[in-house]
């Protein structure tokens, strides 16, 4: 593999300055994705800037009743935090549904948001891939794509975003904060990931050289009754083939408030706004849940060998909403 420099940084301004001075440098969080990609030659940074010692490892309540999660908080600490578990249980469940204990001990929140797709063409440098080598083509469209996107994809790329955590963050309107040489900035998660279009290599709206400093979760009382369900091809240690993060507030049999996001269906965690519109104010029953799922999935454009995902997502949405509704009436 390529020789690279390594340095630790202890303050955010210093970290940003290093990247400003060396465009080949990359931030290193837990390294659970970046280092793998370096071994396979997909990533070839000239320098790794280790940000794990930055003072960004805290989870704190915000004054308005939300939570502020530092970028270097590990997945394990995030999932174990009592306020996360109490206020946003689906987030804790999503994190625990990902990877393995060892990986969660290393992986960070900032790194999780920036992890790359596990599309087998992207991770194999001997194959074409528009995301890795723009303009080289997308073999997945005609080739192996049984775990590829059914929503929001383009002919240029049909890869899915692998994060579980991100699906819960999408459901709860998380805002990503970052720092650049020009000062701080923020991006709602809904704008953080760019549409695929004909530029699948441009994945986020982060300015060049920006360092993610954290994620802010706005207050969301509905999130206290939330759930994450993940379906994968084995019981553990696999990326989702479909997942749902949902929160439901039912009053007098009617959906008062709802959050719904889908995973493993698109290039980003997919906020199911069409479904939410059908649900809000409607009777909290199976008919509504199915209609909501269908409303979201009418936009689905499955490939020849991933049409099962439409059925899977419809079933999952109905199942998770039904479980939440049943809990609400208990």
């Amino acid at each position, binding site marked *: 593999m390529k020789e690279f420099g390594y340095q630790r940084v202890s303050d955010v301004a210093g970290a940003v300055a290093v990247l400003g001075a060396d465009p080949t440098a990359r931030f290193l969080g837990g390294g659970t994705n970046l280092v793998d990609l370096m071994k*396979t030659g997909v990533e070839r940074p000239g320098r790794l800037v280790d940000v794990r010692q930055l003072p960004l490892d805290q989870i704190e309540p915000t004054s308005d009743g939300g939570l502020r999660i530092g970028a270097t908080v590990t997945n394990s600490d995030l999932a174990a935090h009592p306020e996360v578990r109490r206020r946003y249980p689906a987030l804790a469940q999503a994190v625990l549904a990902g990877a393995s204990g060892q990986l969660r001990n290393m992986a960070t929140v900032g790194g999780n948001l920036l992890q790359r797709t*596990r599309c087998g063409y992207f991770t194999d440098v001997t*194959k074409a891939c528009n995301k890795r080598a723009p303009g080289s083509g997308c073999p997945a469209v005609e080739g192996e794509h*049984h775990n590829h996107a059914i929503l929001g994809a383009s002919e240029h790329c049909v890869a899915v975003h692998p994060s579980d955590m991100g699906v819960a963050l999408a459901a709860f309107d998380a805002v990503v904060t970052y720092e650049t040489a020009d000062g701080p900035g923020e991006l709602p998660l809904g704008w953080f990931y760019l549409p695929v279009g004909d530029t699948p290599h441009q994945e986020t709206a982060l300015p060049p050289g920006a360092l993610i400093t954290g994620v802010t979760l706005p207050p969301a009382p509905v999130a206290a009754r939330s759930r994450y369900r993940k379906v994968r091809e*084995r019981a553990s240690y*696999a990326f989702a083939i479909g997942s749902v993060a949902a929160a439901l507030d039912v009053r007098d049999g009617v959906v008062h408030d709802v959050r719904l996001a889908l995973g493993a269906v698109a290039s980003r965690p997919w906020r199911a706004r069409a479904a939410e519109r059908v649900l809000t104010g409607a009777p909290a029953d199976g008919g509504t849940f199915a209609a909501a799922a269908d409303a979201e999935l009418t936009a689905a454009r499955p490939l020849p060998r991933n049409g099962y995902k439409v059925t899977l997502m419809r079933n999952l949405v109905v199942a998770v909403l039904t479980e939440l509704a049943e809990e609400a009436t208990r």
Partner: protein
Amino acid sequence: MTTATRRTFTEAVGTPHPRVEGRDKVTGAARYAGDIPFAGLAHGWLVLSTVARGRISSLETAPVLAMPGVLAVLHHGNAPRVETGYTGMLSVPDPTAAVFQHDRVPHLGWPVALVVATTPEQAREAAEALVVHYDVEPHDIAFSGDRPDAYPVDGHMPGVTEKGDLAAQLAASAVTLDEEYTTPEMHHSMMEPHAATARWDGGRLELIDSNQGTHWVQSELAQMFSLDPGSVRVRSEHVGGGFGSKGVRAHQVAAVMAATVLQRPVRVVMTRRQMFSLTGYRSPTAQRVRLGADADGRLRALEHRSLNLTSTFHEYVEPSAGVARVMYDADAHRTANEVVRLDVPTPTWMRAPGEAPGSFALECALDELAEKCGIDPIELRARNEPERGPVSGLPFAGRNLLACFREGARRFGWADRDPRPGLRRDGRWLLGTGTAAASFPSGALPSTAAVTAEADGTFTVRVNAADIGTGARTALTLVAADALETAPDRVRVRLGDSDLGPASIAGGSMGTRSWSWAVTAAAAELRERLALNTGIPPEGITVRSDTTEALGALAQKERHSFGAQFAEVAVDVTTGEVRVRRMLGIFAAGRIVNPLTARSQLVGGMIWGISMALHEEAVRDRASGGHYGADLAGYHVATHADVGRVEADWVEDHDPEDPVGIKGVGEIGVVGAAAAVANAVWHATGVRHRALPIRPDRVLAAAAGGRHV
């Protein structure tokens, strides 16, 4: 109070014994092939083809040779020539190992060069920078059961066997079945990658390796490099799994070439991705099973045809139809193992070759026949128990299949089972149970051993066994202790070194049987010598054995292990998830040497069965001809969370006429396991899954009434 000063002899065989090297392994003191340091060690990195068929037109070696640390680039234009026109210990060699001999590329992932550098990182960087130009030709990797270019092949058994009039017996049958079953490409996926270090030491070639038989690798390397076998030494002390893939492979040959050219030690370690194309795999199979039976389930007709793929340059047959030659008889009986040549790497032996995929097809077909006949699946098998080998006509040296079913049914609670499918539910999960039979040949290979009575009262056993993680070292310690009527802690076993002499490989479930035979023979003679009470000289008294003659004198019989597999599964047909809640396997596998490690072997085999049923599948990309997702993130094996309560146990299986009494337990555990799971999925859902693995998308498609993808 008195203290016993004289050691009394108690039998070690049959008593659980922790691995003798267990402490070394858990503390890291045990060194594996890639761990051992050498002064001046250089590192080789294999460069593999990125096209599936064609010729190498040129390699741009000059820029790579100028890179930091690079010592050499070996390729077909400059590598030493090797001999391939010989017949090895097990077969004619697979030319995959004879690297850099010509410019042809027969599959994607074919070794085209070795870059040697001072550090592994430099070697890798340079290897990945090497530009290779190809004249590309169109490739064909499309495997299916209806390939017109399929043809039968004799492997270790005849390609085709037939008796009776199949059409007539099928026509006369009250109940018939005609189905295709498919299994995907599967990989050994052992933890330790292939790793070899070659060096010349005083005119002798030494190889530190991770393999399943040092004598095997030594003799093949000697023949390939035209060396006297005595001038080649291969050592392989600890092996982190092999499962059939650790024989002679490209890395050893490349390391020897580089060590010869550079005259310094060279190590070649494979990456996981390289292993997917260089170390063999289990071929996908397309199997057609036709059964015809009377209304009471007695078979009149049985046809089992299995097709597997092989490379364009070497025939490997996955003899899946062989299992039908042992398990069930019929008036008309036909079996065929066929291959088709494609632009892919050569498959190889993988844990229970033939039996693992073959039992999936045959034992699912039996379950379907039981359903059609309205007969309990175990009763159906009981009604079809053959008295002699259905094809060979030879008597069985013990066939304790029904004892396994009886004990298994009792412990699993089979008698309470409602045979109707799709009736049981636990929340979102549909529940079902299934069973299947298992068998695996019990063979042996000639072996030598030397047992020394040391002057200090201890014993040293030298037998060139391979402990590939199975516990062979411990098993042989126990066998030797009993044969010498001493305690295991007075016995030292040395193995994994070709200087110890010829012995069986660790393969075909033959190792423990073969090595124990030789150790027991030498120990028996040593005890006779010691009984003369002539005293032990400082160098000890050594007795050697060779079982070649004894093996040849063994009566011709059908010799097999048998087993009965049971599984309970839960299926969510709305998400396609399948979970194996519990499995029970009861086996008749001869004398069990070390119950601790034998149980581990059997349970491990059954977990392979879960993995085979639900998870494992190597995917090939049609356009490139290479793998998609060739790593352990893309190739799923069962995780802990996929494994419910798995129990393995055994019944008494004693053959008084057998000189050893030991059968192997390395492979029987996986046989029938996938069929038991698949049969349980049918019982849970009412849907037959004849294509492995039973993936969520297939379960969803079945629930929607769609076709299987």
